């Protein structure tokens, strides 16, 4: 705009110059012709020609110069318009960039070396709840919480020390309303044309990511904590590469140092030698069948201690991670120990009640021993008398001796049976005939039945399969049920006291033992509590008998139940599973 008039005036000056030159030449020629037109001497002519030639040359020159000038003019004209266009473009671009700068969802700050805000984009200010003017000229520390200000200062300091280098960091900012936001800042110190050092900062809001990260970290922490508390570790098994990925807790359970992964052989090494084959079988089968699996086994730790663990795994197909099984492994040592202690306590309790029951039967048992003993003594006396005869009656003497042997053995058997009941032997499950067990118990209570004028009906099915059970424990159950029956019939005066013991196989082919009395029966309100510990309707009862009977039957995989009879009395049944082939 400024140069155009200059170019025009310059062109008119040129035209003026050419015109005045042509005029000057014409004037010179005219003067010369007027003053000396006739004597046309050669030198004069030559000078004239020269003059004309120079005039012509001037004209040509003027023409040329005009053309060049026009050309230059045109060129200058084009350049000016390109410049104008460039300026226009620049203006547009600046507006665009300004737009970008102001409204880009990135916060831009420009601060000086002291941290004073020189510039901030609208978005940046808005994100922090301020207007641009509220921040300009203020210390940038205003947007940092007290605890982050030091970090903010040092970050700026680092940039200033390394001019031109980009630095980035994550930091927490505070909004005008006091709420905080997490940002990731990229910053660089530059020297301005006026030699002032400034720091350009672009920050992006990462609050969401940070929160997600925090949530994830927290969730991971909770998970780790939960794993630690529940003593349950997790694992992933990449069968293809024989890699097992463990959680921290799993490493702790197995007593290995934390590593990214562990191979199966190392794990197997830690498994109790007695359980190794079984674990390999289970995992091998799971792998070949691609099926979920669950198993319990023991670990033999380097210090010689034994841990009980229980593992469950789920077959997955996660191609991205290559994991084939995902599972959890729990340290159940404490539970196992508690179970063992409980079992021990139950055994002790069972033993106590057994001995108590035997105490109640003392008279009966004494009788059972005394009878053969009396026979032995009498036979021995008779034997002596047969021998003292003249002549000695050896045949009779031998007969008495045979009886002595038989009766002595019988007394011994009774004592053995009692001792077995009194002894606190560990579980010894073996296949047995339930009828034998019943007969053994009957031999101990025979006299008790007699004393209470109870007639016993035995309906023992002869063709029963064997049951796997602990003989003494089953004797205890039957003994208890028989004693209960006897006691229930004690008040009965108006009808025969009958106790029936029956064995049979139920619909499920399980062995079923029934003990039926015709005593006082079950009160309906007590039926539910019958098997509860410490529940008793007897004045001298401890209330453990039926409770222990049930736990014994349960431990054998059977079921003990009671029901009232249609007539007077109650019936107790219990079932026992059969000795199945291959059963442990």
């Amino acid at each position: 705009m400024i140069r155009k008039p200059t170019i025009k005036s310059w062109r008119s000056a040129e035209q003026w110059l050419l015109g005045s030159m042509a005029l000057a030449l014409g004037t010179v020629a005219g003067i010369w012709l007027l003053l000396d037109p006739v004597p046309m001497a050669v030198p004069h002519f030559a000078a004239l020609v020269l003059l004309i030639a120079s005039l012509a040359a001037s004209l040509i020159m003027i023409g040329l110069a005009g053309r060049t000038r026009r050309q230059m003019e045109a060129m200058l004209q084009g350049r000016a318009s390109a410049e104008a266009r460039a300026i226009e473009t620049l203006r547009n671009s600046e507006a665009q960039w300004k737009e970008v700068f102001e409204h880009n969802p990135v916060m831009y700050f420009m601060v000086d070396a002291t941290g004073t805000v020189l510039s901030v984009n609208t978005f940046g200010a808005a994100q922090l709840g301020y207007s641009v003017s509220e921040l300009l000229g203020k210390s940038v520390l205003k947007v940092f919480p007290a605890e982050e200000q030091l970090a903010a200062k040092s970050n700026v300091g680092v940039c200033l020390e390394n001019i031109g280098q980009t630095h980035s960091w994550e930091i927490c900012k505070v909004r005008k309303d006091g709420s905080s936001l997490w940002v990731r800042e990229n910053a660089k110190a530059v020297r301005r044309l006026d030699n002032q050092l400034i720091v350009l900062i672009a920050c992006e809001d990462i609050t969401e990511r940070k929160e997600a990260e925090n949530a994830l970290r927290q969730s991971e922490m909770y998970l780790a904590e939960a794993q630690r508390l529940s003593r349950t570790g997790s694992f992933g098994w990449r069968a293809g590469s024989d890699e097992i990925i463990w959680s921290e807790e799993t490493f702790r359970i197995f007593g290995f140092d934390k590593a990214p992964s562990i191979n199966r052989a190392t794990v197997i090494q830690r498994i109790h030698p007695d359980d190794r084959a079984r674990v390999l079988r289970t995992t091998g089968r799971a792998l070949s069948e691609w099926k979920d699996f669950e198993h319990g086994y023991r670990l033999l730790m380097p210090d010689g201690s034994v841990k009980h663990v229980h593992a469950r795994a789920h077959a997955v197909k996660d191609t991205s991670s290559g994991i084939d099984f995902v599972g959890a492994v729990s340290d159940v040592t404490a539970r196992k120990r508690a179970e063992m202690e409980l079992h021990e306590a139950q055994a002790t309790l069972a033993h106590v009640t057994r001995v108590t029951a035997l105490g109640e039967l003392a008279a009966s048992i004494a009788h059972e021993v005394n009878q053969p003993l009396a026979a032995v003594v009498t036979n021995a006396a008779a034997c002596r008398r047969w021998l003292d005869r003249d002549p000695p009656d050896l045949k009779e003497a031998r007969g008495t001796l045979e009886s002595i042997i038989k009766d002595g053995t019988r007394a011994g058997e009774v004592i053995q049976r009692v001792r077995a009941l009194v002894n606190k032997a560990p579980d010894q499950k073996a296949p047995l005939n339930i009828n034998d067990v019943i007969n053994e118990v009957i031999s101990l209570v025979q006299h008790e039945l007699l004393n209470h004028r109870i007639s016993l009906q035995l309906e023992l099915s002869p063709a029963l399969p064997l049951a796997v059970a602990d003989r003494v424990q089953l004797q205890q159950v039957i003994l208890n049920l028989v004693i209960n029956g006897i006691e229930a019939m004690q008040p009965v005066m108006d009808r025969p006291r009958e106790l029936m013991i029956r064995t049979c196989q139920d619909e499920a082919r399980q062995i079923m033992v029934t003990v039926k009395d015709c005593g006082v029966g079950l009160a309906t309100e007590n039926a539910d509590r019958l098997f509860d510990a410490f529940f008793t309707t007897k004045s001298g009862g401890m209330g453990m008998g039926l409770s222990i009977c049930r736990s014994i039957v349960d431990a054998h995989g059977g079921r003990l139940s009671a029901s009232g009879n249609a007539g007077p009395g109650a019936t107790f049944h219990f079932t026992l599973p059969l000795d199945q082939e291959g059963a442990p």
Partner: protein
Amino acid sequence: MTGRQASPSLAGAEDPIVFVIDDDSSVREALSSLFRSVGLRVEAFGSAHEFLQLKLPNVPSCLILDIRLPRVSGLDFQAELAKADIHIPVIFMTGHGDIPMTVRAMKAGAVDFLTKPFRDQDMLDAVTAAIERDRNSRDEAKVLSNLHELFATLTPRERQVMALVTTGLMNKQIAAEIGLAEITVKIHRGHIMRKMGAKSLPDLVRMAELLGIGPASGQPQT
């Protein structure tokens, strides 16, 4: 179960018999052997019921009874026997002798009460004593029944006189008492002495005592 174990010499013999009732066959057999070894006849039973099926022979005998028997106790059985007028000496055996039971048994007339296991000699002594007692009571019963038979031969007047004589009255007093002549009383008295087989007045008095003849009545009190 049939617990009867007849001894070979049972048939037709007059020897005493020992009866045993015990539900335990071992004890029964042992006792049988013991008694047989000393030459006693034995019959053993598993229950009171089996014993009652037997017609008891008229020989000195005794019963050895276990105090605890199936269905009916030994003590109850003893009472049952008494009620049925079967008077047989009873020796009780028990696994554990308790005092109330012993007292009850002895009061009911048990000869002895033995606790199992017992000494053979104690048992044999008890059996011997019981059989002796049974023999005596059987003898006494025999004497008494003879006396009853003799007494039955007396006329009512003679019975009246006998009652008065045995209370110690003189003939004259008797005559006054019943309004007869003294001589008539004397004749009755002679008949009485002869019929009763009395050798002397004290003999007759003893007979009267056995017959339970009181001064108030001329009839035996049994």
